[in-house]
């Protein structure tokens, strides 16, 4: 069991890194799916078979598929690949890397402090999860369903394209006559105009 865990963990980390540094969106998505599957194996290894199944079905199976559909629909070409290359300069990834490194240090510290425990000491069966779900956490279930409803309505509304022209105009033009006139800021207490930013 432990071996499976370590192998799956390594696969997850490597595929995530490959996803981040990838230039083609579709390739990156596939790497992401691999990463998610590896995480599912990890879940199974530590004795949570229910969420392992859930991860595969919902996360890798539905959400990522949605991603793939949208990317295919966008029909990005060579131009997108060259743009990604332009954005992957050291000047851009040095900051987040430093921040992530700091977080890693913090997590390592916490883990080292936490004290060891045996993996796979026991399996938390789906039955147990179900009992707890419809017991104390039933309100969470209801809320989750409302959240999904909200997501559904929002996605529908945002996908509607009835008058794209006026929306484009709304988004781009704030200088038209019928827009509210912009008042230049003045220095407080005077009526001298402030420096233009």
């Amino acid at each position: 069991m432990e071996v499976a865990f370590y192998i799956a963990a390594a696969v997850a980390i490597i595929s995530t890194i490959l996803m981040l540094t990838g230039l083609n969106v579709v390739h990156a998505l596939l790497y992401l799916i691999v990463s998610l599957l590896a995480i599912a194996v990890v879940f199974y290894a530590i004795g949570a078979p229910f969420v392992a199944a859930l991860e595969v079905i919902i996360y890798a199976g539905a959400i990522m598929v949605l991603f793939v559909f949208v990317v295919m629909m966008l029909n990005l070409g060579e131009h997108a690949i060259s743009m990604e290359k332009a954005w992957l300069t050291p000047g851009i990834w040095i900051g987040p890397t430093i921040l992530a490194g700091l977080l890693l240090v913090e997590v390592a510290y916490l883990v080292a402090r936490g004290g060891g425990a045996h993996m796979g000491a026991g399996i938390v069966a789906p039955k147990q999860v179900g009992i707890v779900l419809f017991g104390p956490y039933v309100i969470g279930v209801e809320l989750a369903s409302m959240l999904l409803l909200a997501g559904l309505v929002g996605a529908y509304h945002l996908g509607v394209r009835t008058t794209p022209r006026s929306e484009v105009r709304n988004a781009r033009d704030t200088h038209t006559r019928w827009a509210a006139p912009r008042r230049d800021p003045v220095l407080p207490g005077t009526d001298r105009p402030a420096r233009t930013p």
Partner: protein
Amino acid sequence: MELLWLIVAIPMASALVLAALGSRCSRRAVTAWGVGSIGVSAVITLLVAADFVISPPAGHAYTEFLWTWISVADFQPRIGLYLDALSLVMILVVTFVGFWIHLYSAEFMMHDEGYSRFFAYMNLFVASMLTLLLADNLLLLYLGWEGVGLCSYLLIGFWYRDPANGLAARKAFIVTRVGDTAMLLGLFLLFTGLGTMQIQDLMHRASEQWAVGSTLAVAAALLLLGGAVGKSAQLPLQVWLPDAMAGPTPTSALIHAATMVTAGVYLVARTHVLFTLAPPAQLTVAAVGSATLLLAGCSALTQHDIKRVLAYSTVSQIGYMFLALGVGAWSAAIFHFVTHAFFKALLFLGAGVIIEALHDEHSIFRMGGLRKELPVAFWTFLIAGCSLAGLPFITAGFYSKDLIIWGAWSAEQGHPGFWIVGMIGVLLTSLYTFRLIFRVFFGPILTPVSKRSGYAMTVPLVVLAIFAVVGGVVKEPLLAFVQSTLPAMVEANAGMTEAFSEVVAAFAFLSGLYFAYLFHLQKRSLAEDAVANPAGRGLHAWWYADWGFDWLYDKVFVQPFLWVARINKNDFIDAFYTGIARLTEVLYRALQLTQTGLVRWYAAGIALGSVLFLAMAVFS
């Protein structure tokens, strides 16, 4: 006698009514109120005077307590009126002359749009002056003092649409303010030193507690003198009076000739005990008086605006009164005040008639030959001028002025030097007075007469002229009457009899008359030559500019003040507050930089925040 408070209250009430409702009433109603109130006040004053003379109250003083003004621990000044011989004489003059001047101004200001405003101010002035004269404590006196200062400002700048008038009014107010501040310091000193504001108590305590010549007494007396000098336009604060002629002529007659400018004389006379306790201060009074009378007399010789000649003449005559007070001839000063009020008011009213008649012409060098055109004005002006210069034996002015000059030699603090100055003053007075008369009334007509005055303007002239002549008769009774409050003049220095002094004065008068005749009537070219000569021109210019005092004050006080104001225009104190606003703006700009509108930026912000938060949670 109980009607004393009405004397003050009636003009005050009239002023308030006119101020509130005057613009809505007809000219007639305003005249009735304005002139009538002073008339009623004058009648009541006569009644009170009769009562006082016939059955004088105990101690020759009557006090009427109205109410307590302030009541704080030991400090309880009250509103009270004090009537004794000195204040009685003064309120008689103020109400009587005031009434005739109000009557005159009813016609003079008839066509002015600020008619009711004028009478409101004039009545307020009379009320304040009466308060000043009748006050029984120094604080109430100061109230009246400030009141007359305010009314003077309002009336000088009466025709406010011309900024020059406003400037003159401000100048008067600021210069008298300097004096008022000195007086206020004197009041503080007196109160902290002696513990009371009641004038009579003050005088008693001062004579008990302070030795003659002690520094406190001298300081207090000098400070009060400062106030008197400011209000009475003596050296060094005389600069405001000539410019105050920008106001209407009745104002000049009432305020700047007969009443307000004599408030200083009244103050010194009222607190004479304090001055006798401080001989250096009294000497200063005499010195100020004599210097002023010479200075103003010389300046009057060069002026060509008829009212400015009379203004400088006023300054000079009050110098005589101060001289009298300074040498210890208290009652002589009051006598001269009485006669001066009559003839100076008359001179101003006559000048007003002339100015009106010649359609607002002020320069005497453009007048001439009005003797036949304006006979009433001529004869009354002539009488007043003779009284001013001191025509022997007939006119009141002769007696009063001569009493002062004689006292300048022979009184306690007198000195022959003062006598000589007084005599030179007589010469100068005669010279400028007759210069004025000869230029205005004799010679060829240079400006034709366009308007003659009605009865309301000529009757007061006649009445005042009668008094200017007859006044000499009341000399002995008046002096005896005032003796009850002011000590009589003690003849300390021998060497000069009154008769001899009178003869010298008459001689000075006649020589002044002769020179004026020579230079301004017979051979006018002599006057032009005297001025054309470079030395003469320089002297003329210097005396014309009031001996350079205006220039001096401008250089020493006004310019530095304006310079400081200019430097501080950016207001370094205000910079603190604008600095706060600026700082806020700077911070705003700085924070604005974080609002880039980019999603990546915000995400990075979240990441950074979470790292920090975790670090805090983990490592603390």
